[in-house]
């Protein structure tokens, strides 16, 4: 089996990128969807979707959160069954009863969440569900190595998954799919978890698979990836495929419009790396008002009020003793936004956790105003006027199974309590007020937090954190992750307004263009160190990018 593969793929591999520009494929599509509809109770997640995917093609599936991308993938992979419509795979009728049937039919899927068992080795994970009777681990390990090597991937079959990095696990997910030689590979937002430096090589792997004759459906909402990899792009909006465009004729702005169904607002927050470059001129003119008012030059003449946040040589070692933060020193001025730029996994998460009071630094100190917070509990940090928008909205930002009102009031529950009993009425009234002020859509005080869309969830978190009285400092970590374009703008609007009211903001993000658009200054974190700090201007973009990738200034 192993030998056969090598010969089959080699000639194709040499054709490389050249195959990307090719005549329209007239052969039968690998996958053909007609009139696919899926309803969950009263909710129609997908209606009348029609789609074809051909061999050797990367089809990008683009759409806002909740547009039906994941539903479509899950239908093809047999997780759900369609309410109506017809699917054909390789010309034959295709109606997988479960993922197993889909796998047997030659459909593989890389999920948004990892689907490898952390406590097991790579080889056991890949054997899972593919083998019967007695295992031949050694033989299979060789097969894994060989198969991975075909696509330029390196995998150690004997490693235990939980010891692997996020990027390595993602690669393993793909190798796992490739082992079955799928005709069709579904990739559900695979790059969401990848550090930016690994996205490029990941897309190369996708291309190689397509060149080897595979068909790929790649779900994403990052336009830069679409521009780089897609042969065609299908755009989903509110459960319908509103457009399918070949990339040769693609206009990115048109795609964005099709995606969100309206014109973009004036101060375009960067939605994709390439777009940001086009919009450079416009953006620099439209810097946030707060930034303009305060100016980009320190006002040396005025007497200087104390910094709202001072981080002094903060060091953090994780449980294994690895240094995650190495003598971080930064300060945030009142009314200013300091961006922390960096490729993910360079210590930002740890910094966010420490400032939220969820981890304790190993050395160094940090202050809010002149109060030392180094060993403060989350409650004390909140009491000091520090709003926290955590990186992980679901695990840290909210108790997702509780109502919006309960989530809004949880951290100052004492305010809504009399004689130990909760005053529900007061709580509901407060929640109603916040829901209106922060424009949380589709929610009442009793709505379950989990049932809100990502953007509205983030608004609830912001409503809670920004209404601290007084709000001295806001720490926002990856506040726009997973949000659609419209919600991104709203979130930054709220952050700017907090700034306008005099609070300082520490904004941690891996989206450099967003940082440049929103921040006053940007500090770059690399391998747990602050390697440089400079004003947030388009002119500094190159320099910041270089620092992020470890090229010392």
């Amino acid at each position: 089996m192993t030998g056969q593969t090598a010969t089959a793929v080699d000639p194709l591999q040499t054709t490389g990128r050249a195959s990307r520009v090719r005549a329209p494929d007239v052969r039968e599509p690998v996958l053909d969807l007609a009139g696919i509809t899926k309803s969950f109770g009263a909710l129609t997640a997908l209606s009348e979707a029609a789609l074809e995917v051909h061999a050797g093609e990367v089809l990008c599936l683009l759409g806002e959160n909740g547009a039906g991308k994941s539903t479509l993938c899950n239908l093809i992979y047999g997780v759900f069954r369609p309410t109506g419509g017809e699917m054909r795979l390789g010309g034959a009728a295709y109606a997988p009863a479960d993922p197993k049937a889909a796998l047997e039919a030659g459909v593989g899927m890389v999920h948004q969440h990892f689907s490898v068992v952390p406590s097991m080795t790579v080889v056991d994970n890949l054997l899972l569900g593919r083998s019967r009777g007695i295992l031949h681990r050694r033989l299979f390990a060789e097969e894994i190595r060989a198969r991975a090597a075909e696509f330029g991937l390196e995998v150690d079959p004997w490693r235990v998954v939980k010891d692997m990095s996020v990027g390595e696990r993602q690669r393993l997910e793909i190798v796992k799919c490739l082992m079955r030689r799928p005709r069709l590979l579904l990739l559900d937002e695979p790059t969401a978890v990848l550090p930016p430096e690994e996205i490029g090589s990941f897309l190369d792997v996708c291309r190689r698979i397509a060149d080897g004759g595979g068909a790929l459906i790649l779900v994403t909402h990052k336009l830069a990836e679409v521009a780089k990899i897609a042969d065609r792009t299908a755009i989903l909006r509110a459960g319908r495929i509103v457009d399918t465009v070949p990339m040769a004729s693609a206009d990115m702005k048109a795609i964005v419009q099709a995606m969100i169904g309206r014109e973009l607002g004036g101060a375009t927050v960067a939605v994709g790396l390439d777009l940001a470059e086009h919009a450079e001129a416009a953006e620099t003119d439209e810097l946030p008002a707060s930034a303009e008012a305060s100016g980009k030059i320190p006002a040396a003449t005025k007497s200087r009020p104390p910094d709202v946040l001072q981080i002094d040589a903060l060091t953090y070692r994780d449980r294994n003793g690895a240094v995650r933060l190495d003598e971080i020193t930064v300060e945030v001025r009142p009314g200013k936004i300091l961006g922390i730029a960096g490729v993910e996994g360079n210590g930002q998460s740890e910094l966010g956790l420490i400032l939220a009071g969820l981890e304790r630094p190993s050395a160094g100190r940090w202050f809010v105003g002149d109060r030392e917070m180094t060993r403060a509990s989350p409650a004390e940090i909140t009491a000091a006027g520090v709003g926290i928008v955590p990186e992980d909205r679901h695990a840290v930002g909210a108790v997702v199974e509780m109502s919006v009102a309960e989530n809004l009031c949880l951290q100052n529950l004492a305010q809504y309590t009399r004689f130990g009993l909760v005053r529900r009425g007061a709580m509901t009234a407060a929640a109603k007020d916040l829901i209106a002020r922060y424009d949380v859509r589709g929610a009442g005080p009793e709505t379950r937090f989990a049932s809100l869309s990502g953007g509205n969830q983030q608004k609830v978190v912001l409503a809670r954190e920004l209404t601290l009285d007084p709000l001295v400092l806001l720490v926002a970590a990856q506040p726009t992750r997973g949000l659609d374009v419209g919600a991104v703008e709203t979130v930054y609007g709220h952050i700017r307004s907090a700034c306008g009211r005099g609070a300082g903001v520490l904004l941690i993000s891996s989206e450099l263009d967003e940082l440049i658009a929103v921040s006053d200054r940007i500090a770059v974190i690399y391998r747990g160190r602050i390697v440089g700090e400079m004003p947030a201007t388009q002119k500094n973009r190159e320099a910041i990018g270089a620092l992020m990738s470890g090229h010392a200034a």
Partner: protein
Amino acid sequence: MNLETLAVYIASTLHFALPLMLAASGELVSEAAGVLNLSLEGMMLFAAFFSVWGTSVTGDPWIGLLWGIASGIVFAILQAVLSVRLRANQLVVGIGLNILALGATTFLNREIFGALSRQLVPGFGHLHIPGLSTLPLLGPSLFQQDLVVYVGLALIVAIWFVLRFTAYGVACRAVGDDPRSADWAGISVTRVRSIAILVTGAMAGVAGTLISVGDIRTFTEGMTNGAGYLAIAAIIFGGWRLWPTVGACLLFGGAMALQFQFSAATSPVPTAALLMLPYVLALLSVAGLVGRQVPPAALTIPFFGSR
């Protein structure tokens, strides 16, 4: 303690440990797959009764053993249907089934044998391993056991092999640690867990038979007397790994045997303390004070599927 009493002590340790070892290694398969059968106690009790009944009806302890295994499996089917198919709370089902087993065996025992019967049934024959069994001192105690003892040991080795070297073993661990991923890999979580529970039932069947037919050759009400829970404690102490679990059973067996070694009056340690030792050790080990033990991530959590 001289050599002779040592030999007796070792034999008696094995004697107490073997039913635990069988029950624990069977239960380990379920727990690896994410199902905690508190009903292990009930399965053993059920089998203890049915093996005696079967032996009494047919006069053949080996057919009695088959009855025991079959009854253990029947009981396990109940557990599997309830906790895996119907996704009922594993703890409640386990406790409920134990109540049921106690009631059912007591009831049947009175109906069939009468309340005060101590009727003995034929026991298993001995197997003398030539050469070894005639060794001085240790020979008779170690190598002159009931044949069923060797069958039991072979079954434990078989379980080790299945868990370690077969696709089913890998599926069990996957289902117990990360059922969603297993499901996505095309593994039927329900099926893997159900089979695991049946294996547990069969092993508990052998263990229960050993306690009744293989030991005192009759049935007494509630005779397992917590052995099922002790087997579960052994798994915890063994850190959900087979050989350490077997080792824990031997340790527990040793503690029980000590109690008979000393008459209550001459005992340097209170017997209660000895009996408590296994549980204390298990408790310390889950606290990480004696080695760090982490249960399978999905233990006791029902799987609701991806649909």
